[in-house]
């Protein structure tokens, strides 16, 4: 198993490099211009100068190698320096990945935004999984019961109604009419005492609910399908005929086996948390990673788009490995050599 993991990690390196190149090439080929959003009154000569100062007109290879150097050498060294307070030689000359829009280090902004994304998207993911699994199992166990019918209906609604609609509906009901929850998320809020915790919970409740609805819908469908499949297996009949109680049959034999594919699915979904929820963040002004990426795309901010998309790609690759490894651990039939 250890050998397998090492091999997978090693093969991931070229994969990641190829991905980074492809992302860069796509962005380079796209017609975006960092000065495109400037007012029309700014003349072309000034625009050309700005592009020159940003290095936006450098040849593709120069830009790519510069980015590789910044991302894989300068940023990690800088991170080690800030954590350990040791200064490496050449610390002054090293340039970090600098955003064209904010002229600040991209990584710092990502780090600044990670908390709100994790708070909102992460907690909705956990909540979604916690609700989805029991609901899915019970729906399958009592297939075609009222609970299953109602559950299926609700899940279909959650699955098919887009978050920009539910989000807006929540705002109109709970912010505009009832005035229970704020529609604007305050990212500067620091939880220090009970009062600020209340505020934090109040502002999180709507975006989290919107996202939870979606995650729950997705996960519970998978759990239900997987459970149904296992309920019809021969070993379940055997277990029942051995005289085991229903409780033991379901919890030991059905659930355990049914959750194997679900766990994989959960692991594969984790990178999505870091990517943020683009639309939901926008609606509630959570201003996390998703919103940052959108703004960068609109502004033609190549270093930011490249870095954020790339980090996302790395996470996808890593969690794919995690999912595969988990699968091997959970399912004894699967062996890796």
């Amino acid at each position, binding site marked *: 198993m250890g050998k397998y993991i090492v091999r997978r990690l090693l093969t991931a390196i070229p994969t990641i490099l190829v991905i980074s190149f492809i992302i860069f090439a796509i962005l380079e080929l796209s017609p975006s211009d960092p000065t495109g*959003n400037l007012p029309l009154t700014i*003349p072309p000569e000034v625009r050309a100068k700005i592009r020159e100062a940003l290095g936006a007109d450098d040849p593709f290879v120069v830009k790519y190698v510069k980015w590789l150097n910044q991302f894989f050498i300068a940023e990690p060294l800088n991170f080690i320096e800030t954590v350990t307070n040791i200064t490496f030689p050449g610390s002054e000359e090293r340039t970090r990945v600098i955003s064209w*829009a904010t*002229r600040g280090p991209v990584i710092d902004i990502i780090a600044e935004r990670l908390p709100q994304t994790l708070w909102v998207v992460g907690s909705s993911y956990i909540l979604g999984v916690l609700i989805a699994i029991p609901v899915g199992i019970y729906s399958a166990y009592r297939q075609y019961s009222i609970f299953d019918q109602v559950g299926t209906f609700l899940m279909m609604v959650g699955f098919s109604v887009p978050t920009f609609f539910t989000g807006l509906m929540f705002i109109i009901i709970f912010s505009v009419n009832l005035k*229970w929850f704020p529609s604007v998320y305050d990212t500067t809020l620091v939880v220090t005492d009970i009062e600020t915790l209340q505020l934090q919970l109040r502002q999180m409740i709507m975006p989290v609910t919107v996202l939870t609805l979606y995650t729950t819908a997705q996960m519970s469908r998978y759990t239900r399908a997987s459970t149904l499949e296992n309920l019809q297996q021969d070993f379940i009949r055997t277990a029942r005929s051995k005289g085991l109680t229903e409780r033991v049959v379901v919890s030991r034999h059905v659930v355990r086996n049914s959750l194997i594919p679900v766990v994989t699915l959960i692991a594969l979904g984790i990178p999505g948390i870091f990517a943020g929820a683009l639309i939901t963040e926008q609606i509630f002004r959570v201003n996390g990673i998703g919103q940052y990426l959108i703004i960068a795309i609109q502004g033609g901010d190549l270093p930011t788009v490249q870095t954020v998309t790339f980090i996302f790609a790395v996470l996808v690759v890593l969690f794919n490995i995690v999912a595969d490894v988990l699968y091997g651990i959970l399912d004894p039939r699967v062996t890796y050599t």
Partner: protein
Amino acid sequence: MRVKLTLLAVLFIFSTLFGGAAMAQDMQEVTILYWQASSILNPYLSGGTKDIDASAIVLEPLANWSPDGSLNLLLATEIPTLENGGISEDLTSITWNLRDDILWSDGSPFTADDVVFTWEYCTHPEAGCVQGDEFVGVVSVEAMGMHQVTVTFDAPKPNPFRPFVSHIQPILQKAQFGECLGAEMSACSEQNFAPIGTGPFVVEDFRPNDVVTYVRNENYRDADMGKPHFDRVVFKGGGDAESAARAVLETGEADYAWNLQISPAVLDSMEAAGNGQVVVAYGQAIETIWINGTDPSPDSPNRSVWMEDGSNPHPFLKNMTIRQAMSMAIDTNIIAEQLYGRSGRATCNFINSPASNVSMNNTCDQDIAGANALLDEAGIVDSNGDGIREYDGHEIRVQYQTSTNAVRQNTQALIKQWWGQIGIETELRNIDAGVFFGGDPASPDTYQKFFSDVEMYTTGSASPDMESLLSNNRCGQAPRPDNNWTGSNIIRFCNADYDAALDELSSTAGAEARAAIIIRLNDILVQEYALIPLVYRSSASSAYANSLGGVDINGWDSEMWNIEDWHRLDM
């Protein structure tokens, strides 16, 4: 037991959620929503309104523009004029006397050195300064002592109020930005994220593309007058215009929401909730139909290329009668009322502000019968019975392009219908705004390339002086392949009287005399039907809560121009 516990837990959650609702507010705080989040607080590195407005709360120019287009002094003692000697007789220099009682927010004194430094900062050859155009023609900026500064131009500048005037070019502190010259400009993110200013507030915390918080500047010059009235400003970005309006007008979570480009009907219904109101400000922004002066036909080897000898004219739009008929067929009132609502007024003029610049010589009431008669009289008739008039062997079919935007597409539909009524067929086209305004010389769809017969977009002027806007249409400045399609004369206009009047304008000082020439220039453009002005658009449209006092929305400068006067009204 279990039921009880669950109930208790539910009760606890609810009490925590709603218990904190009534929090004591001892700090006076104002919340401003910009649906585009601010990315940097240095207007020399970003031209976005979101960034200029966020920095205007901290940084100040020598003087700024009031909503009526007049100058308002901030860091100078008087407005330089010819009479007080502030403007030299030959119009080539302007001398500002600075106030000697101004402190930066860090407590150090503000001097002429800071002004000189700001010029050096922006004009450094490696800088890539966004506001570089504002300093074009400036030969030197010199400190004449601690509190006097002279700006010298390379030629007479009858309107010298450009450098250091308005919030797009505020004064930076030399002590703070001294290391950030040239290529280092971008590396100074610490400075760019928290500039030290002379304005009413100081940056407390800046999160790029998210939120800026400011606290009162204790060293503000009018601190003894109780200004600013607020202790804290929260400048929150993100989301969209509609939800920003909702947060002010319906939920009351924010006090001010910027640039609400949303349907008038939606805005009206939100305003009816009674929490706040929508205000608009007018600067100079005219939605205009631009008429191509050159031949844009796809089979022409010189598609939309202007020639010095005038050899590539438009096959039928070169005829003024056709252009006049096209203008007469349009009802600008319907467009303004139905499509723009409170954010636009019908206009017959290209120049609509300040009030003294507006020509009274033009009318533009819709007259379809008159337009038809005019064309018939000129012999431009439909001879082959297909419902479309011909001129000189060309069917009058126009391609009409603009950017993708609901209001623009509705305008196009109306105008297509009216032009149909005078025997002109219109093919409509809309292009993504990013491409249309993107200026990519490789794209055939930019407004500069103008591969179309007519196009529509808004143009404007950031300063109340119209000289640079009108100079755009000087002969010879057309976008062409040899200038990489970057010229400013989009309509490829070439008129000797117009150019002569422009020359006169550039050597005439005095507001009245200049206004007369500006009116003449406007009349040439409009009466030659070189372009068709449609709607005088508000340049700003924002909402603010009823409890917020002192807001005076400004079409000529940052909307935050008088934030020190904003205060909480007793409700």
